[in-house]
């Protein structure tokens, strides 16, 4: 019979193993998903796939009878333009809101604001898309005299609203993580509140804020349903905010359901999935390098 101590050491090892498994599982899942997406697209990727056309042509004709062309340049431009506009709007607003919540307001206002901002994050993306299609579309036509309200501006605004909650809550955590001793030391030196934020807190919380922004970028670039409905879903390289665009994610969502299994079209949609993987990978890698560079200084 096992004595108490042995029994304890056995459960201890078992629990440790379990926790270790949980830690490793993320790696397994990521590689599993990558492997699956890669396998579905690989057949075409290595046999007769035209990389130049794929990356540098904006002609997307997946079901043409005469001349099938798979160029995703316009789709990349669509994703990039909508994401960039969303970040341009969401980062100042989100970081500003995070500073206000963590430094300037009383506990009551803080709690209310946090609850409301979290509610903003809980709105499903289909509902956002619906708002874009039925509310923002006529509004943009009326305000800007645009021929159609489903465009970069519409999609960018919706995505900004969707990513602000992420930027706010992670940015606020980053600011909170700055030790109070920093604040006390600065105040003892007689700085104003603005100087405290600008000179002490922002530099100290730099990494966390950058993480907040990049998670916002990830949210915006990966969003599908809302942009499918709000951007107009038109294959073209935008030249102004009033142009309709189509994103990489929306293309997969709209066409995968009806592309015949394992046809070229189906495989190309998976290759777009690989491309999205690479884009997020590069974003994360740059973020990592930037954060490290900041630390070395």
């Amino acid at each position: 019979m096992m004595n108490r101590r042995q029994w304890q050491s056995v459960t201890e090892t078992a629990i440790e193993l379990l926790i270790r498994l949980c830690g490793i599982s993320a790696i397994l899942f990521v590689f599993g998903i990558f492997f699956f997406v890669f396998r579905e697209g690989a057949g075409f990727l290595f046999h007769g796939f035209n990389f130049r056309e794929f990356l540098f042509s904006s002609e997307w004709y997946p079901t043409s009878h005469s001349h099938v062309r798979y160029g995703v340049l316009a789709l990349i431009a669509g994703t990039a333009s909508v994401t960039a506009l969303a970040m341009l709007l969401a980062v100042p607003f989100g970081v500003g809101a995070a500073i206000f919540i963590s430094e300037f307001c009383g506990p009551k206002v803080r709690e209310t604001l946090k609850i409301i901002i979290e509610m903003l994050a809980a709105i499903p993306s289909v509902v956002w898309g619906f708002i874009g299609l039925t509310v923002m579309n006529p509004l943009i036509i009326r305000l800007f005299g645009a021929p159609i309200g489903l465009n970069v501006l519409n999609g960018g605004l919706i995505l900004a609203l969707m990513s602000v909650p992420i930027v706010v809550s992670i940015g606020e955590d980053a600011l909170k993580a700055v030790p109070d001793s920093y604040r006390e030391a600065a105040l003892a030196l007689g700085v104003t509140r603005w100087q405290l934020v600008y000179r002490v807190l922002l530099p100290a919380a730099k990494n966390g804020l950058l993480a907040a922004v990049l998670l916002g970028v990830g949210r915006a670039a990966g969003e599908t349903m809302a942009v499918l409905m709000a951007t107009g879903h038109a294959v073209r390289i935008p030249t102004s905010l009033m142009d309709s665009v189509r994103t990489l994610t929306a293309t997969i969502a709209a066409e995968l359901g009806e592309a015949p299994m394992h046809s070229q079209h189906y495989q190309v949609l998976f290759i777009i999935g690989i491309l999205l993987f690479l884009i997020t990978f590069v974003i994360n890698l740059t973020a990592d390098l930037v954060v490290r560079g900041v630390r070395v200084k």
Partner: protein
Amino acid sequence: MKPVVSLLLAATLAWLPIGCSRSKQPEMRVIQNIGSDTMVNLAQAWAEEYVKVEPSVSVEVSGGGSGTGIAALINGTVDIANCSRQVHPQEIEQARQNTGKAPREFMVGYDALAVYVHKSNPMEEIALEQLAEIYGEGGHFTKWSQMGITMRGGADEIIRVSRQSNSGTYEYFREAILGKGRDFKLGSRDMHGSKDVVELVSRTPGAIGYSGMGYATAEVKTLRIASKAGGKSFAPTVENTLDHTYPIARPLFMYTLGEPAGHVKKYIDWIHSEAGQKIVTQSGYVPLPRTGTQP
């Protein structure tokens, strides 16, 4: 709104079996019916009416597009596939390889593709060549003024509204106005369902769009279509479709794998009957001509 439609459908589908189990019919038979987005309202109307005729059979309808229906047929997971185009030869071949049976075709009605514009647009009729200039790759029309149309409020740019590239409506419209082989011009707003097209056109002054005539509402203006510029133009009506004067009309099909089973055959026979064809008219489509019975 496509998502709303699918939600409603999901809700209806979720209710069907429950409603049936309540009635405690000993032998409930289910007919799976998937396919064309154009036909989904019609198929739903048939299914609802058929329950009254034959309470022991429940027909479960969902949309997704003609391609989705045929794909399900090839995989053998559906009893009837709705299709707003004819099956391609390679699809027949695939079905044969996968299941050993060839799809059997039943024509169930006609659909005229309606072309419409915003209510404020003064245009009343359009010729096929003009549509090709607007929609076709290499076509020159990008402004309403090029066709002599003066738009109020300066919305001169033509906003082309189209469908996602694998819908049956998209394929038929492409072939009907551009002929085989020619492609659409890029940059059209590709909506994910006929309802979305109508919705967008009704809210956008400079827009032009197309869908099955059953989807046209009072919110948009349906154009008369001429085969040749300057020729006589025709509205998408039942008479004009049946005597072939309306140039962009197509038959609607249902496909089964091989000869249909007894209860499925009975359902299709009922669709061909007077009661079934009455529903075609009620849903805004064109019924099969009286004399020409199904071969």
